[in-house]
Structure formats: structure tokens, C-alpha cells
């Protein structure tokens, strides 16, 4: 029965994805995000309660958790009426990934977990949370590039179809990365500690994740401005995609 929570969550996300298309229904969209996220939180809670260990170990399960983090981060950073177009960028993708997680069996409750070790739980949980943050940062960086291009091209509809301002987009992208990078650091360090205990080697996923960390560390370290910052954030997200999709299932 608890799996049924998937449907109100999907309904909320789907409704938001459509509602954000029109300025008239922005408020409805925001309520869709909130209620959908609450329903997904309930679903994750049930999944956690029914499993002895980490319940999102499969690629689909981790995708489910990933969507929850992305929507959660969006709720905290950008879920405002005046940033409707940000919601229009995030929510359709979130709804789609949520459906993919469902098809892959990642929203079922009561599955047996491969991980019962707290150490691994921390490792996987933190990495997924960080990747979710980087995804949101990539969406923000994309919006920055779109808005910057519109300003450069002097788009006549720039005040009618409003995006957040360049400075705000740049600032929120940076903050999202500043929150996400420490999470990835904890996830990576916990993984490396475990690796040393097991005397294991570095695989492709680990290498890509370290590269991802380096790219975002450069962003925080040298704090590039304008388009360069956006391009770097997208480069980092490219590594996230490789880690999450191309190399999914190669690590454990």
C-alpha cells in the first residue's frame, strides 16, 4: 500500500511541470511541488522503515532518492513565484526521472538492501545528495547562460518572460555548489577510507567522481565570474551524468 505514495508524488510533480508553463498557475505549481515532495518524503520514509540498511542501493532506488534531493533543493533555493521558469526547467526533469525510478523498481518498499553497513550508507547517501545539488546548480547555470544570451541579443520579450537576474542566478549557483561540495567530500572520504581498509583499487566511477570534485573545488576556489562559472558548473555536471548514468552499476 505504501508504494501508492508514488502516485500523489508524481501527480504533484507532474502538475507543477504543467502549471509552471503558465504564469497564471504558478501558485498551483508551487503547491504541486510541496505536496509531491511531502508524498515522496513519505514514500522514502516507508522504504527506510521496511528495510534493514540502506534502501536505495539499486540504480533506480538511488534515482528515487536523487529526485527527492533535487526537488528538496529546489524547494529551498528557487521555489518562488517570480522564478517560474526555473521551476519549468526543474520539475519536468524531476517528474521524468521519478517515472524512470519507478520503472526500474526504485520506488517499491520492502526490498532487501545490499548495504547494511552504516559506513556505506553515509557514503552513498552523501554522494547522491551532492549530485542532486550539482544537478540543480547545472539547471541554474543553464538558466544563467540563457538569460545572458537574451541580454546580449537584446531579446524584446525579456521583461515579459522573466528569468531570475544574472547576479542572482550566479549567486545561487555558487551557493548550491558551496553546499553540495562538502557533501561530496564526506561521501568521497568515507568511500576512500573504506577502500583503504579493503585494500581495493580505484575504479572508473571513483575516478570520475574525483574529477567532479576537482571541477567544483576549482569553482569554489577561484570563483570565476559570468559565463566561465556557468560553463564550469556544466562541465562538472557532465561528470555527474557520466557517474550517474554511463557508469551506473559498475561500482558495487
Amino acid at each position: 500500500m505504501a508504494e501508492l505514495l508514488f502516485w500523489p508524488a508524481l501527480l504533484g510533480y507532474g502538475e507543477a511541470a504543467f502549471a509552471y508553463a503558465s504564469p497564471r498557475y504558478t501558485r498551483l505549481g508551487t503547491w504541486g511541488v510541496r505536496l509531491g515532495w511531502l508524498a515522496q518524503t513519505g514514500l522514502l520514509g516507508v522504504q527506510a522503515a521496511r528495510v534493514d540498511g540502506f534502501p536505495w542501493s539499486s540504480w533506480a532506488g538511488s534515482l528515487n532518492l536523487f529526485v527527492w534531493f533535487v526537488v528538496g533543493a529546489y524547494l529551498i533555493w528557487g521555489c518562488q513565484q517570480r522564478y517560474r521558469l526555473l521551476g519549468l526547467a526543474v520539475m519536468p526533469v524531476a517528474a521524468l526521472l521519478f517515472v524512470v525510478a519507478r520503472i526500474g523498481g526504485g520506488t517499491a518498499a520492502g526490498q532487501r538492501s545490499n548495504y547494511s553497513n552504516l559506513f556505506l550508507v553515509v557514503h552513498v547517501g552523501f554522494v547522491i545528495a551532492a549530485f542532486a545539488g550539482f544537478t540543480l546548480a547545472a539547471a541554474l547555470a543553464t538558466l544563467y547562460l540563457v538569460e545572458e544570451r537574451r541580454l546580449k541579443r537584446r531579446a524584446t520579450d525579456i521583461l515579459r518572460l522573466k528569468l531570475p537576474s544574472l547576479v542572482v542566478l550566479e549567486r545561487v549557483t555558487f551557493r548550491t555548489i558551496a553546499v553540495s561540495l562538502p557533501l561530496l567530500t564526506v561521501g568521497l572520504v568515507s568511500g576512500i577510507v573504506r577502500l583503504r581498509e579493503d585494500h581495493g583499487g580505484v575504479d572508473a566511477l571513483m575516478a570520475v567522481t574525483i574529477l567532479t570534485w576537482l571541477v567544483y573545488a576549482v569553482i569554489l576556489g577561484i570563483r570565476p565570474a559570468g559565463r566561465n562559472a556557468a560553463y564550469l558548473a556544466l562541465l562538472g555536471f557532465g561528470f555527474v551524468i557520466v557517474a550517474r548514468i554511463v557508469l551506473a552499476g559498475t561500482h558495487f
Partner: protein
Amino acid sequence: MRLSLVGISHHVAPVELRERVSLPLEAATALATRLGDAVCISTCNRTEVYLAGEDETRALASLEELAGEPLRSVAYRMHDEAAAVHLFRVSAGLDSLVPGESEILGQVRAAFDAASPGPILDRVFRQALQLGKRVRTETAIGESPASVPSAAAALAEQVFGDLKGRRVLLVGAGRIGELAAGSLSARGATIAYVANRSAEAAGRVAERFGATALPLEEVAAKLAEVDVVLTSTSAPGLLVRAADVPSRRRQPLFFIDIAVPRDVDPDIQRLDGCYLYDIDDLEAVVAETLAGRRVEAARAEKLVVEEAERYREWQSSLDVVPAIAALRSHAEAIRAHELAKLPELPEDQRQVIELVTSQMLNKLLHLPTIRMKQASSDGDGIEVVRTVRHLFGLEEKP
């Protein structure tokens, strides 16, 4: 006739005439008081007098006195629902020169607050003010700028977000530049420098904004210290060249060039972190937002239609309520008359008869009362009232 309106506006009267009839709030209120139950709205685009139960001829005569000429060819007169709908459109900003401008709502409110209207004007004006608010919250009619200066400020916000603390260099001390600077200042920006060929004009504008006056030669040196450069001179050549712009590592630099011929080198748009809008770009943005306003105006008109419907229902109820009261009073008079014919009876028997006849009367009138109210909300109130008055021989007085 309950509500009437007489007035002139930008649709029918030229500015020379409107300015003669335009009144400050105190004078408009005094005029309304002289005319009786009235409210006078007077702005640069319209002077209108709304009256309840009064003949508008006197109001028209007062406006003609102000104009110093007959106004029959330009003044409009409206009555009842037409007058109410006109007021609704005015407060919604739909009758304004720029659709959706917000100032008019405050002007209608001020005129209403200053007057001492009776129940009819009170009801209609409150409804109009509520509608004005609804239009601005339920549609996007007032969200986009409708002029070049406000578009310039709104574009700066698209770059910087909040303009608080952003520093502006104003080049040129002309009227349009000053207006655009005022628009930026109203949104929180600091006008830091005013540069102009004439030191006196620069000083005057700089004083208004609390800025520093500069000669034109120092413009290039100040580019590193500001976020927005607003130019509006009549100089024949370029005043700001791409080579003058310092490399900006962290913050964007936004140029607004409303001068013709242009003051700012168009190549600046190619520089990283620099954004340049000239007068053509700004006018294109304004044209687009005005087109958007017209789309929203169509939505606002639907809200006006809803309010007109509510007004009609209220009007119908005004027709029905006195008729219901007259019918009941007529029936009660018959009952009292017939009871008076009874012979002397013991008090308890008289009370029983009074109770029974009263209950009979109530039951007889219950359904007609309900039906009349129903007819009122269906828009047939006036017809039904006429029929009831005719059938029962009630007085024609409402």
C-alpha cells in the same frame, strides 16, 4: 435614475481643454459637495463627476464653467449600469492612456475617500476599487514597464536583481535621462555621478540625486566605479568607447544609451560582462510589453464583465426589496382592517384569531417573496416587480 456620470477624458478632449477642467483633489471634492451626492475624479487624463439621484446637467454646467466653453460635443454622459461599468474600467486602468497603469486606482480611491458619498455611490466605488485591486493581482497587466525610462530600470534589474546599492553614472542632464535616472533611483539604485557638458546643468541634476557632478572628460575614468551607465546627451559622436571599458572580473556593467545619435560604442555589447541597450532596443522592449499588456487587458475586461453582472444583481435587488416590503405592508393593512370589523371578543380568543391570520398571511406571501428574490438574481426583477405592483395595486413609488 440612480447613478449618472458626466465627464471628459483623453479619448475625446485635447490636452488644452483637459488642463482647464483638471482640478486638484480639494477643488474636486468641493465641486462634488456643491453638486450633492457626488464624487469627482480629476486627473491629467480625465475629469469625471459621478452622481447618485442627481441631474447631471448642473455638473456639466460646472465643468463648462471651468472650461470656459460649451462641452456638449466632447463630454460624455452615462447612466446606471453604463456609468458603473465605465467606473469599473477606469479603476481597472483599462480606460487609461497606457492600459493597466496603476496610478489611476490611487486617484479613484483618493476621490472617493475625500467625498462623502451616499449609499449608492459608496457601493459602486467600493466595488470599483475592489475590482481595481483584483485586476492587478489576478492579471499581469501592470507588471511590465510601459515607458522607456521604466524599461531601462527593469532591464537593469534583469542584470543585477535588486538595484539597492548599485551605482549609476548619468551622462547628460536632459529630461529623458533624468527621468530614467529617477526610475533607477526609485528602484534603489544610487545615482553616483552626473556628467554633462554644461557644469551648471550637471550640478542641478546631481543635487537632485545627491550625486557628484563631473565634466564629460572624466566619464571614462569612472567606468570602473559604477554598475550602470546611462547616457542621454546630444553629443554628435561617441562618448564611451569599447577601449574605455575596464576589464570587469566579477560584476557586469550595464549601458543604457537613450541618446540619438548614440553616445556609446556598439562594440561594447561584444565585451564579456557588458550589456548595452540603445533607444531602439528599449522601444522594442516597451512595444513587446505593451502587447503583453493588451493580452492581459482582455483578461481584465472579463473581470469587468463579472463585476457588471454583480452590479446588475444588486440593482435588481434594489428594485425587488421595496416591492416586497410594499406587498407585505399592503397585506398587513388588509388584515388589520378586517380584524377591526370583529365584534367584542375575549382577549384570548382575539389573540388566537390574530395569530392564525398572521400565519396565513405569512404562508401566502412566503412563496411570492422567494420567487421575487429569485427573479431579481435572474435579472428579471424589474419585470416581476412591475407585475406584482400591477396585480396588487401597490404604489408605484419604489
